[in-house]
């Protein structure tokens, strides 16, 4: 009885997790720019991962696999914001730099950074143009 209940629950969670994974992937394609796409990717590594790993934990029962899955979940929750932040920070150093209203000093700095980044950008476009 409890076994079939657990199976049904984990099946539901796996299905919901797959739905959120697909939603994140669709968002990655549909959203207009770099930063909004990053938010879509955030769905796949929070709720979708939680649902799928949680469902697997229910299936694993009281065994060593349960602890290992728990460690995987914890690891993903610690590393994914770090990776997202690294991405956003890298974008700040490129031509994707966010506009910062009401901040002339940093806006100038942004302009300077953009100018400095331009030669590299031109090199990039010539590289891709050759393909």
């Amino acid at each position, binding site marked *: 009885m409890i076994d079939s209940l657990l199976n049904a629950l984990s099946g539901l969670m796996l299905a919901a997790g797959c739905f959120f994974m697909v939603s994140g992937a669709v968002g990655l394609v*549909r959203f207009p720019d770099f930063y909004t796409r990053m*938010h879509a990717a*955030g769905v796949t590594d929070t709720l979708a991962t939680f649902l799928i790993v949680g469902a697997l934990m229910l299936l694993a029962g009281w065994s060593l696999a349960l602890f*290992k899955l728990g460690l995987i979940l914890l690891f993903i929750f610690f590393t994914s914001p770090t990776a997202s932040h690294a991405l*956003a920070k890298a974008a700040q150093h490129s031509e994707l730099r966010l506009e910062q209203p009401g901040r002339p000093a940093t806006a100038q700095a942004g302009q300077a950074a953009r100018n400095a980044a331009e030669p590299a950008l031109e090199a990039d476009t010539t590289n891709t143009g050759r393909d």
Partner: protein
Amino acid sequence: MRYLIALFLILSFIWLANSGHYTALLLGFGFISVLFVIAIARRMGLVDHESQPVGLLPRLPGYYWWLFRKIVQSNLTVVAGVWRGRAGISPTSARIPLRLKTDMGKVLYANSITLTPGTVAVDIENDEILVHSLTSEGLDELRRGEMEKQVRALEE
């Protein structure tokens, strides 16, 4: 000293949960490797209140529960935005004032912002945090400072 003990307990738990072989020989190897890692961490000066925030431990489960509910909510918002297309989102970015004092609090706050989908902490400068949000409501919610209040309760 208590940071060393905390590190020992955490490393031992990770070793035990990942090994699955509980013979005297392998347990001995595990013990030696845990001590070895602690010795390295200590020589690198990594064992302190920042790497082992044991003081936070009693209040952490409550915060995790609150953050988890927040993550589920914001996931639903972002997924709704995905399926509604361009009309469902209003991407904005702004600097949000930061009133937390400790480095630990700032890191927790910025990581929590990034962990909830729909908002990403891009940069921390002095007492402001640059946040990009998928919807303008997401920024308004951060400005109301509910999450900041939770983090401040945690660091005190």
